[in-house]
């Protein structure tokens, strides 16, 4: 079904990354005006994607303010903010430097706080303008905010912070017509996941990447990893007016992975 976001103005941070790109593409097909905010036009992939590119470092207060000023000037409001910018650092706390710790919190947590903070005046206008009197913020948590993957300590902690921030924002701004939810993906086939399996942090070194991915898929009840499009399907719904009663929730989307007890073999 197309047109669910017809007439809506949306901004997606990390809009040129693996998942962000799929979200921008979907939003555009659903009729939204999309700003793809990222560090560069290519992001973590190559080439342009859907939506108007907007240069944004989510850790910079000045750039965030400027980005929202541009949207305000061009569209006069914002209906949907997706905080999809994020990074992963693959270490235990013992091998995480303070600089790395600060960097991942700056991007994953501060990078959710700042765009949300400076989007609020625009989102209030969006809520006032929309037929259903509401605007939507969608944050990116992770199933790692609930249960740990080995060697990802700072990442797990940063996503737990996003989960708590999501509930807090939903409480504080619900009365203004702003809904706030988080999506908590499991294993999604993105450049970040391939980097995780290529790196030492996962302990998965050795096997050819495709073999590794096949075995990872087999652990899932659905026997597959997620795709960026799977995530975009849920973002699209949470952004739409069909989700008008959904707020303050953490939506785990992981192919059933975390519904299981650890899967022992042999």
């Amino acid at each position, binding site marked *: 079904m197309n047109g669910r976001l017809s007439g809506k103005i949306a901004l997606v941070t990390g809009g040129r990354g693996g998942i962000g790109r799929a979200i921008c593409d979907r939003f555009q097909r659903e009729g939204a005006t999309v700003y793809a905010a990222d560090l560069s036009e290519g992001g973590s992939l190559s080439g342009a994607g859907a939506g108007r590119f907007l240069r944004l470092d989510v850790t910079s207060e000045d750039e965030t303010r400027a980005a929202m000023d541009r949207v305000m000037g061009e569209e006069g409001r914002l209906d949907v903010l997706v905080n999809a910018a994020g990074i992963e650092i693959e270490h235990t706390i013992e091998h995480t430097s303070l600089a790395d710790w600060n960097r991942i919190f700056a991007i994953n947590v501060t990078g959710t706080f700042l765009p949300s903070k400076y989007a609020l005046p625009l989102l209030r206008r969006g809520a006032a303008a929309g037929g259903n009197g509401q605007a939507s913020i969608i944050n990116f948590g992770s199933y790692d905010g609930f249960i740990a993957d080995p060697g990802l300590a700072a990442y797990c902690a940063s996503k737990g912070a996003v989960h708590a921030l999501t509930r807090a924002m939903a409480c504080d701004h619900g009365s203004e017509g702003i809904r706030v939810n988080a999506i908590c993906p499991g294993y999604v086939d993105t450049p970040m996941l391939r980097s995780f399996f290529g790196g030492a942090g996962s302990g998965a070194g050795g096997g050819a990447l495709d073999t590794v991915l096949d075995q990872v898929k087999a652990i899932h009840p659905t026997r597959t990893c997620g795709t960026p499009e799977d995530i975009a399907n849920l973002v699209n719904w949470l952004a739409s007016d069909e989700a008008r009663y959904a707020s303050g929730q953490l939506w785990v989307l992981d192919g059933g*992975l975390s519904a299981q*007890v650890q899967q022992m073999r042999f």
Partner: protein
Amino acid sequence: MTRAIITGGSRGIGRAIVDRLLADGAQVLTCGRGDRPSDLPAAVLWAQADVANPAEAAALFAKARAAFGPVDVLVNNAGVQIEKTVAETTDADWDQLIGINCRGSFNMCRAFLNQPDARGAIVNIGSISGDVADPSMAIYNASKAFVHGLTRSIAVDHGPHVRCNAIRPGWIQTGMLEAGFALATDPARARADALARHAARRFGTPADIANTVAWLVSDQSGFVTGQCFTIDGGLTAASPLQPGLIFNQD
């Protein structure tokens, strides 16, 4: 003075709880569907009973009250496990498992709360499987989720005088666990793999659960109610998918 009823105390976790509360000075009645175990300490009162039967559950309280007065501690430990998916589960399986795990817990809690002077602490034995699924254990998993929900309801409804909590054990070293490994194609490897998935690098012991029960029925936990505590050596704190364990095989 603690006067306790512990269901399913003939062996395993239940027996460890019996031994511990006895050592802590409690008067204890325990029950099972069979005869009194020959190695049960003489100080423990035994009753043959099926907790799934409401009259037999109520009779346990009558017996305990006649022997040592109002019961102020109830530990619902009796439980069975059936290793089947929903499609494989028969009506008889349902009646047996839900009868003991769900109705039995309910019967005992109701009998405890219907004492004219009901006060004290209830501890229900749930399971990590009530929150995350073990494969081919469908109605067992569901029955433990019932136990967790019942625990919160009792805590909320009977707050002033009765505390009610649950324990969610993980893999505890009992005859049941060893039987599981024996079924693996490579039991030694299955055991090593399972151990590696526990942050504690060991399985639980019945005493680990008894330690938690002892705390939850003591004054030390006087403000604790309505909670479900996971005691699993860290098993469920980690993802079900641990790449390092899957791929670093010889």
